């Protein structure tokens, strides 16, 4: 704990504004510390970090959990030099940070990886699915595509409660909606259909999953699949809807901040993270290999590409015109 405490103290002392952390964790007993700032639940990445510090006994890993917005703010204001790696699923914010020059090159040593400029490396993925309650709405069993969903909602006389991430509140929600918009020109008619029913955008996965499990909501569109998994066993009526037209996936990425004291520490951890040894310690669903698997069911998985074009969606102007349309 000594290491973590020292880290927190350092933060309080140096940061322009102290990071609002959701938790601090630490694994390994090595003398030199690799500090990771991330949005992941620690339990999710802990096996990877533990194994890393086992293989490299010189290191211990400190994990600072924060929201993606908090990480974005801290990055812009200047990260503390002790932070060696930033991991986040907010791919648009990650891309923007790299585009704005806050990252430094990660030496991949010839390892195969999906990356942008060798500065932002994809370390895991989060597949996106929709969920429904089979008991209350068995008609969704037959739905294969988004167009079928539009038609089904159109034909339904019931006042369905429909949930999805609120793009105005949730960064992930905005990101997914913009990707849907790019991917499928039926996106806006889907939203319009949703809006004819009891449409209830939500801030968080948990809320949406709970609502579907309890039968309160008929369907939740675009939910992170890995959050659903733990609930599947205890809720027999919770069903996953995998669209045949396409399935989105959000890449989780990592970059080494330019401000880092020792950029090699972060690089080392990233290099380990993309090995099959490390991937095997992640939940099967979020491993990079998921993208190449045909067994998952549903249509082709389209992970969001690591592209600087994502930054234009973050532009207040672009956001403004999107929400204008949303609210029409």
């Amino acid at each position, binding site marked *: 704990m000594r290491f973590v405490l020292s880290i927190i103290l350092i933060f309080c002392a140096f940061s322009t504004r102290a990071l609002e952390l959701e938790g601090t964790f630490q694994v390994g007993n090595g003398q030199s510390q690799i500090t990771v700032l991330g949005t992941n639940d620690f339990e999710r990445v802990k096996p990877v970090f533990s194994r890393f510090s086992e293989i490299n006994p010189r290191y211990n890993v400190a994990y600072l959990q924060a929201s993606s917005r908090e990480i974005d703010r801290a990055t812009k204001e200047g990260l503390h030099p002790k932070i060696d790696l930033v991991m986040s699923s907010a791919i648009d914010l990650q891309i923007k940070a790299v585009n704005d020059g806050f990252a430094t090159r990660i030496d991949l040593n010839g390892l195969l990886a999906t990356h942008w*400029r060798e500065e932002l490396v994809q370390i895991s993925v989060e597949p996106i699915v929709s969920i429904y309650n089979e008991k209350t709405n068995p008609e969704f069993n037959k739905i294969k595509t988004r167009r079928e969903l539009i038609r089904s909602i159109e034909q339904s006389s019931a006042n369905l409660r429909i949930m999805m991430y609120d793009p105005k509140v949730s960064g992930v929600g905005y990101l997914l909606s913009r990707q849907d918009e790019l991917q499928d020109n039926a996106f806006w008619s889907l939203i319009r259909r949703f809006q004819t029913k009891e449409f209830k955008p939500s801030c968080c996965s948990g809320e949406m999953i709970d609502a579907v499990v309890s039968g309160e909501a008929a369907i939740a569109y675009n939910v992170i699949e890995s959050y659903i998994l733990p609930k599947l066993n205890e809720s027999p009526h919770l069903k996953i809807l995998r669209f045949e037209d396409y399935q989105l996936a959000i890449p989780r990425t990592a970059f080494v901040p330019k401000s880092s004291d020792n950029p090699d520490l972060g690089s080392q951890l990233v290099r380990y993270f993309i090995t099959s040894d490390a991937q095997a310690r992640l939940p099967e669903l979020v491993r990079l290999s998921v993208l190449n698997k045909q067994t998952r069911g549903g249509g082709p998985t389209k992970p969001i590409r690591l*592209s*600087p*074009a994502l*930054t234009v969606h973050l532009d207040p*102007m*672009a956001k403004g*015109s999107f929400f204008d349309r949303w609210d029409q």
Partner: protein
Amino acid sequence: MTSNWSIRRRLFSLWLVMLIIVCGAVYLVTGTIAKKALERGQDNDLNAVAFVILDSMVNAPNGLVFDLPYSAFEVLAYSAPERLFYQVALNDKFLAGYDDLPKSAENASKVSFRTALYRGEETRFVYASKPIKFGSGEKIWVIIGQTSGSYFEFASTIANWIAVTVFAAFCILALWAELSLRHSLKPFAAVEKDLAQRAADDFSPISRNTPTEITRLVTTLNETLGQHQELLRQNRAFIAEATHQIKTPIAAMLTAAEILEREVADHQKEKVHKLIVRARYASKIVTQLLTRASLAYREMLKIRENVNLTQLAESVIRAFDPIAESKEIELSVDAPSHSINIVGDKVALREALVCLVDNAIRHSPILSEVTISVFQGEETVSLIVSDHGTGFTTEPHLSIEASLGKTENRASTGLGLSIVKRVAHYHSADLILSNQPEGGARCGLCFRLS
């Protein structure tokens, strides 16, 4: 360039200097050209995106509306892994994007480009503008920037490859030059071989078909050869004439002195006798000088023939018989029944043996013996002349060093031993000069058979 460098080395160094200059120049030029070409392509892409934004502009009731086209940016992103920046502004009023992009160098033209350092990296910017409506002074400005790292890298890769190609081409040419050089130098080698193989007194002109470039050299060589031949001929004629011219008066003087010896009164006979001795001595020196000169010439000719030493010894003894008889000295050859042969110059060996026997007879007392021994050892053949005279009074080898008449104690010209030494040297033989335990000298040559 050092003057003793070989032609190959000279050519190679010139070649290398040229190679370095050309490769460097090619690298710089192609690097610049490739960079310009790539920059042009990049400019076109940036320009296209800028105009997509400009063209999307709509004058809506609630103000200017324009689109930031994701797919256009995506095309840029696919073209190279570069960072992208953009800005939309109405005149000087910032509307969207990055508000700290570098300003355009010239504000007037519709489209301009510039490269500037932005956020720590060389970035290419396009500045495009359009009036918001026809005739309006208000202009909407779009700036699109893209970092150039990978473009520069690609340009330098192209330059590298071309420089390497030029280098390889040069190496192939150098190899070809080496082969042609070898081929062109062949006539020189042939002339050299011709000169090396010919005998020392062969002054005939080099008569081969030579390339025009070396005809002059061959002509000059032939002229020099002719001059040398003439010089040698004159030299020979001079020696022959000089010897003859000197010998004849000395012989006449000797005869006159001998006649005079008989006619003068007794108390003067002693002086006349000295005159005779001196005249004989002079005659001998002339003979031996001639011998030495002719030996030097023979040495140059490198004559090599089979010489039967036993026969040689016998023929020399026959030549000395009259003199030996007058001094009542017995000459004999001590040789095995089979003949002993060595390879050498017969005439030179004979001269050496003559000198040795002459010396031996001169220093032998009346009624003594002079023996020429020829015998073969395991690896050597020896030719030894032994007498029972006074032997060497000083260290034997010093007797040679003190040449030309200084060894008066043996009343010789001194040239004799120096001739023997020369012949020994020419035949790579050891010169043996020693005193016998029972008195008398033992001189000769010891030839190595290998």
